[in-house]
């Protein structure tokens, strides 16, 4: 596995999967529109390309937000609440239970979103205090928290094996 950065739509060609990372979803959304990546990622997704969205990536994956309109990929049937847990002083770490995982996973929630509701085709993988914080569809995974800020690689393995369909060598 070799990780590469994608800033242009052409760079999506031949990738085994893509990760839409954390950040400011409004900023990322604007840059996705101006770079042509919004349509690029959508067509990558609809051709079956595996996508994992963390935090802002989860916001962008949703089909609608509870807040003001902003550019979204809209590839997941879900209603998202941005900054669902409040401003940075309320950002936190907490262990969450994840469907199919052997033991809790330390969720690092940074100005994190949550799914208020999901529609058909979306499977909830984890909830925190009644809020959906991880979910998946056929070829998409979303997490409201940041597995990449921990040393626990179970979500990375889950994405590669269960979503991308790559066999462990």
């Amino acid at each position: 596995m070799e990780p590469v950065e994608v800033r242009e739509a052409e760079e999506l060609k031949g990738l085994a999967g893509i990760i839409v990372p954390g950040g400011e979803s409004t900023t990322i959304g604007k840059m996705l529109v101006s770079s042509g990546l919004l349509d690029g990622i959508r067509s990558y997704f609809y051709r079956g390309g595996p996508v994992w969205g963390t935090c802002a990536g989860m916001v962008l994956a949703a089909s609608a937000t509870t807040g003001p309109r902003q550019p979204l990929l809209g590839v997941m049937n879900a209603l998202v609440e941005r900054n669902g847990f409040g401003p940075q002083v309320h950002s936190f770490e907490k262990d969450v239970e994840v469907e199919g995982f052997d033991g809790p996973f330390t969720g690092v929630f940074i100005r994190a979103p949550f799914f208020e509701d999901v529609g058909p085709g979306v499977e909830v993988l984890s909830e925190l205090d009644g809020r959906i914080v991880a979910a998946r569809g056929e070829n998409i995974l979303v997490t409201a928290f940041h597995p990449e800020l921990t040393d626990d690689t179970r979500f990375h393995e889950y994405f590669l094996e269960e979503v991308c369909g790559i066999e462990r060598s």
Partner: protein
Amino acid sequence: MAENGRLTGTFRVKSGMAQMLKGGVIMDVVDAEQARISEEAGAVAVMALERVPADIRADGGVARMSDPEMISSIQEAVSIPVMAKARIGHFVEAQVLEALEVDYIDESEVLTPADEKHHIDKAAFEVPFVCGATNLGEALRRIGEGAAMIRSKGEAGTGNVVEAVRHMRSIIGGIRRLGVLEEDELMSEAKELQAPYELVRWVAENGRLPVVLFTAGGIATPSDAALMMQLGADGVFVGSGIFKSGDPASRALAIVKATTHFKDAKAVAEASRGLGEAMVGREMGSLSEGERLAARGW
């Protein structure tokens, strides 16, 4: 601290927040309208302050934390993170900003220092801090005090990128130097740097700072931003450069684009087209010793 089983204010949560700003531009704003223009242009955060550095320079006097009223109006105006500045060593201004629930505090040399010897004990706060640094030792001292993000200082309010370049090269060069030292040379180097030994060791092993490194102080054009990114910055603070220019909205957007596509000269050229007047710049030789803000901080 723990609230309903949630662990808040951990270093991972504080430094992780800065990780999410990487590759982005943070813009100085003095009112809600400027904050909206910045958000619209694609800023990843705004820095609320009473006067931009160029005006602080021109007006003189003591520069302090902003009016909470103004900070709140900016928080209401945008959904992106709102940062605010506290004076060096003024831990009560920092307590006030934390009570206002700003997303990040900049313990900043742009404001008049409140303490000539001590910086704020930043580890004691739930809210994360960013601090300026001119070299590696200064950066590691601030991280030792709990800073969760570093920015090279540059010389704010001058529209001249030369000091930002000097400080970024100094920090990155310092990191590179640690990488080639032998284990038994690190203690002596820590003494030279006047930095905590454990952090010196960490940097020597990992080849980077343990927190995100932005740049600041004098960035006025899209090319300035791309220059700093190519020199190794993780992102850019732009102060006076945007709202002291002829066409702030266009310049803000152009600097965001140049920061995103910093390796793509065609994209930087495209972003730079027809922006109108940049802010008026100051040559470093024209600044007296007392006017040099980067010298503040210890």
